[in-house]
């Protein structure tokens, strides 16, 4: 019994991080209808960013998140202007393609730089234990950080002008231009924010699990699941979705072979999609 509780708690902690990982994707997707296939690569980039700052300069991994996210924002702008801007508003597949191309480049550079062998950020904060079960400090901190970032972002989108402008542009670009909103710049910033959060998420994950250049892919997949649970372009939803996902994983593990978890997870995912075509926590339809 205690075991079930423990693994559910574990699930929630990890889930929060899944959620954070997905926010970047869902934001960009919801706002500019771009399925950003560089997401995974950039999560990985965040991981290695933190790794380098930590093992290279001995910077505290959690502090390292700040420069990493900042760099992520700039990289985001760069990717937007170079690869995304020209294909926006074209058939959705175009952006799919261009981001896939950028992804190939990033992965290629990554593999030639770090090969595909695993790395890890070697810190372990004192955890808390529950009977024989232990929750590492890293998990606790990561979960808190995730919640904080997600909360901040959704406030930003609902309240601030830029936030609303982002939604306006996503809803009707031409009209936005006519109303004096510099659409392109707004989109670029939105993209930058999305990437910044993706890299930050990567950085947090790096403090939990070892990673390779390719690790991002797995989290990208989970991000898709979370996106659906949470609804497109809805950060708070994404966080909730992530936690739910973690909870489900944690909840079922004690009762089935762990190798069946993915089956449950994705079957459930498709089921939910059919039941709630706009996502479980969707606020605005699509």
């Amino acid at each position, binding site marked *: 019994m205690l075991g079930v509780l423990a693994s559910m708690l574990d699930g929630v902690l990890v889930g929060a991080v899944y959620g954070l990982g997905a926010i970047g994707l869902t934001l960009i*997707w919801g706002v500019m*209808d771009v*399925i950003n*296939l560089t997401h995974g690569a950039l999560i990985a980039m965040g991981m290695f960013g933190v790794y380098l700052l930590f093992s290279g300069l001995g910077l505290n991994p959690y502090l390292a998140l700040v420069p990493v996210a900042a760099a992520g924002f700039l990289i985001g702008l760069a990717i937007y202007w170079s*690869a995304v801007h*020209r*294909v926006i508003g*074209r*058939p*959705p*597949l*175009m952006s*799919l*393609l*261009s981001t*896939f*191309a*950028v*992804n*190939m*480049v*990033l*992965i*290629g*550079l990554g*593999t*030639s730089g770090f090969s595909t062998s695993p790395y890890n950020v070697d810190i372990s904060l004192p955890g808390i234990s529950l009977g024989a079960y232990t929750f590492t400090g890293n998990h606790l901190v990561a979960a808190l950080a995730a919640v904080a970032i997600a909360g901040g972002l959704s406030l930003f989108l609902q309240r601030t002008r830029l936030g609303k402008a982002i939604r306006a542009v996503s809803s009707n670009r031409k009209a936005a231009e006519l109303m004096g909103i510099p659409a392109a710049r707004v989109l670029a910033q939105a993209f930058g924010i999305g990437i910044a959060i993706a890299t930050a998420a990567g950085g947090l994950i790096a403090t939990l699990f070892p990673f390779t250049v390719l690790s991002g892919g797995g989290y990208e*997949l989970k991000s*898709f*699941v979370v*996106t*659906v649970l949470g609804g*497109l372009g809805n950060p708070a939803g994404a966080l909730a979705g992530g936690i739910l996902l973690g909870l489900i994983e944690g909840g079922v593990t004690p009762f089935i*072979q762990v*190798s*069946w978890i*993915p*089956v449950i*997870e*994705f*079957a459930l*995912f*498709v089921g939910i*999609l*059919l039941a709630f*075509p*706009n996502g479980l926590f969707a606020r605005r339809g*699509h």
Partner: protein
Amino acid sequence: MEMIRQPFFWIMTAVIALFALLPPLTHDVGLRESLFLAAVYIILAGNLNLLIGYTGYVNFGNIVFFGLGGYLGLWLVTVFRLPLVVAALLAGLAVAAMTAALWCRILRLRGAYFALASIGIAEATKAFVSNFEPWGGATGLYLPMGAFKAMGGPREALWTVYFLMVAVMAATLYLSYAVKKSKFGLGLFAIREDEEAAGVLGVRTPYYKTLACTLSGVLPAVAGTLFFFKNGVIQPEQAFDLTLSTEAIVMLMLGGQGTVTGAALGAFLYEQFRGYLLISPTFSSFQLVIAGALLLVTVLFMPGGLMGWVYQRWPRLRRILE
């Protein structure tokens, strides 16, 4: 059958003939291997085109057809000792049936959500098969050498499989052309442009979508059987490789979605190109980077894919190269 009177029909036929004749005439197995993979890619991209290019539904799960087909086929061959061709065809039908049953519900989802669901299906299937003991779970199915013996030894077997694969490719090309020229195709295009409006105009959208999706599954499934039969082993990681799914989409876009020529050309060039980078001593370590960069350039400066560009440059070709 006024298709026969179209020049494009004969262009396709010529290309298929080249595929079928070049390797045996030159006795060049290297060429055969490369064309074999090209054929596989053309089959994947070409059938995907029915759903993405014609109907406007982005299916990331297209690899499931290929993988399931492979598993069903090898299972039938190894366990029931069925001859390859029979197994392949049965696999095709079985996959079609499953698709019709399952996907018609998925197809109720629109745009991005459909894309997501298709990813979900791909992953679920993969995870399921890696746990499914009758199919060897993670170990997969190994093909006993005997299976080749039945076809006169490996050497002959591989040639036979190659010709079969070319046949499936031919079927793919003719099918996509026939569909494009048909009333059915017109309905699909209408759905792609605006599903609501199409419905109001009388297009039975649910049936048409399901039919398109089902059609797009049959030939990849057959190809799957052939491909993994040739490999002699099938394992989940290889059978349901999401990257290949995405690459198929890439090929389609590269060539120009919605056009038969585009799908085929995109697939062919992509295969050749990746293959070349992989073996070229200078590039091999940077092959991904280069492939990516070139792809990006094409996307940005040839939005309509290769065919889009060709049509713009020589509008008259629009009539000839479908």
